[in-house]
């Protein structure tokens, strides 16, 4: 899978299935994401969007199928999944900052203990990232002292601190007050223009239209339709997609 012609392929998923007991959540997903692509995943709740994303870095164990990250089969028994995860930053709906650590310590933790870089360098890198997401003045604040938007931006900085090749966003703005959604999307937009490979579960139409190179419409455990934002929003071929879009627009 890693010959020259596919070296631009960051993620490849082949026939991915996931069962929760007798619930068949993912029913055979096939997908390719190329370097610097921003792929938005849309679909009704319960359709398997989050599960799909979480299977890709094996936070959820897939039931069958293959996942290749940068050409490497991450389901193979000899693969250390922790090392794979360092290449994939993940941002959650509920931020999940560590409440016992300050903003900057949240960011420094993984670089220091997983990448084993020294404290001084981690500190500098963390400050630069806080600067980038616009919360440098809150470096020493604890998560509970931050607004939702600030927390989510710190969470993005924490993921970026590992210098990942890929970023996953699982409904990053769904838990935010409306006036804070913009500041988070701004950060994500910047990352997209900088060429980060991103997979974003979101229904922020404006952001998707502007930043996404492709939209996957996921329903009932299958990719029902995929295409550019324009194709999906204005010229959808699948009835399922049209129904859904008519409800959220």
């Amino acid at each position, binding site marked *: 899978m890693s010959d020259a012609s596919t070296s631009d392929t960051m993620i490849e998923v082949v026939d991915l299935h996931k069962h929760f007991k007798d619930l068949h959540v993912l029913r055979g997903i096939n997908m390719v994401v190329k370097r610097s692509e921003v792929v938005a995943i849309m679909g009704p709740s319960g359709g398997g969007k989050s599960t799909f994303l*979480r299977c890709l*870095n094996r*936070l959820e164990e897939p039931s069958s199928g293959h996942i290749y990250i940068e050409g490497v089969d991450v389901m193979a028994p000899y693969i250390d999944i*922790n*090392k794979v*995860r*360092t290449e*994939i*930053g*993940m941002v*959650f709906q*509920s931020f*999940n*900052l*560590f*409440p*016992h650590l300050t903003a900057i310590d949240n960011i420094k*933790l*993984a670089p220091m*203990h*997983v990448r084993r870089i020294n404290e001084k360098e981690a500190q500098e890198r963390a400050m630069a990232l806080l600067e980038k997401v616009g919360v440098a003045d809150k470096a020493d604040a604890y998560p509970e002292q931050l607004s939702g938007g600030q927390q989510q931006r710190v*969470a993005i900085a*924490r*993921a970026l601190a*590992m210098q990942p090749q890929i970023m996953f966003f699982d409904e990053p703005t769904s838990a935010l007050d409306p006036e804070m959604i913009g500041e988070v999307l701004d950060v994500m937009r910047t990352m997209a223009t900088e060429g980060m490979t991103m997979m974003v579960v979101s229904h922020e139409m404006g952001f998707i239209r502007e930043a996404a190179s492709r939209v996957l419409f996921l329903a009932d455990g299958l990719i029902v339709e995929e295409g550019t934002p324009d194709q999906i929003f204005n010229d959808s071929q699948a009835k399922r997609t049209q129904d859904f879009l008519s409800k959220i627009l």
Partner: protein
Amino acid sequence: MKPASAPTDIEKKFLLSHPEWFKLVRQPLFVAVTFLVLAAFAVFLLPEKQSASPAWLYTAVVIFILLLLAWSGNVLADRGKPEILKMGVSLLLIAVLCWLFYRYSGAEWERLREFFFNFEKLKGSWWYLRNGLGVTLFLALISAVGSVLIGLIVASLRSYNSRTLNLFLKAYVDIFRSIPMIVIMVVLFFALPYAGISLGSILTTIVALSLGYGAYASESFRAGIEAVHSGQIEAARSLGLSRVQTIRMIILPQAIPVVVPPLTGNLVAMLKDTAVASVVAAPELLKKARELYTSKTNPTSLVAAAMIYLIVLIPLVRIVNMLEKRLKKESK
């Protein structure tokens, strides 16, 4: 308290609807007069124990106690009375009940004192009890460390959610939580030697307390670990932290504040349970007290031991309480 002018219709809706006699009962004058009546009852009507017929005696005492309770209840239940008065009434009530008990119970106070509070007999033997206390504290300290370590390890292993491992860990926890400490100790001390393992009384106590209270501690730790939001673990794992790193750097720092109050509570209970070690002849406080009981043929040493336990444990219990309050405040 009464409204200055006649109550409006709205006010009438919310007025206290006590009957007239009830208002009278709460007047200070009424309280004072009834107090004098009660005092007169106590002085003139309560019969001497020997001089009266039992029937009259019981009737008089019961009526007096009921009146006393009614009177103090009337004061204590009144929100308008000052707190200092209520405190005085409470103390008075306790004092009067004690006096009644002293006067009518028929206890042989002199013999009671001679048997159980004969501290002259302990003269020159206090060092013996002090040594016992030293051993008790030593046993408690080592077993505390042991049980916390066992609890921590068992709870951490259980957080891996391995089905096979959990089966064995659960078996350990359930078994040791269901067997009384005294049985654990006796089995370890008297049965194990037949299996070729002879631990001696001190080591038996430490092993038994560590295993027994380790089971409790593991449950406390588990509750703390489960209180940590699952998103925390996902966030840690998605950053590439290993399981051990996640437990050490993310879960435990959040779980420990939750765990400290129940854990310290357990340790206080364990300190008390060191007394059980006297059945396997560990030379701790209770054992020493029982030895003195035999050698002096007087149980005052047991009362002394009880007092020593009190002196050590009351401050500990208070500290646990304070810790609990502090942690609650911090977590807010």
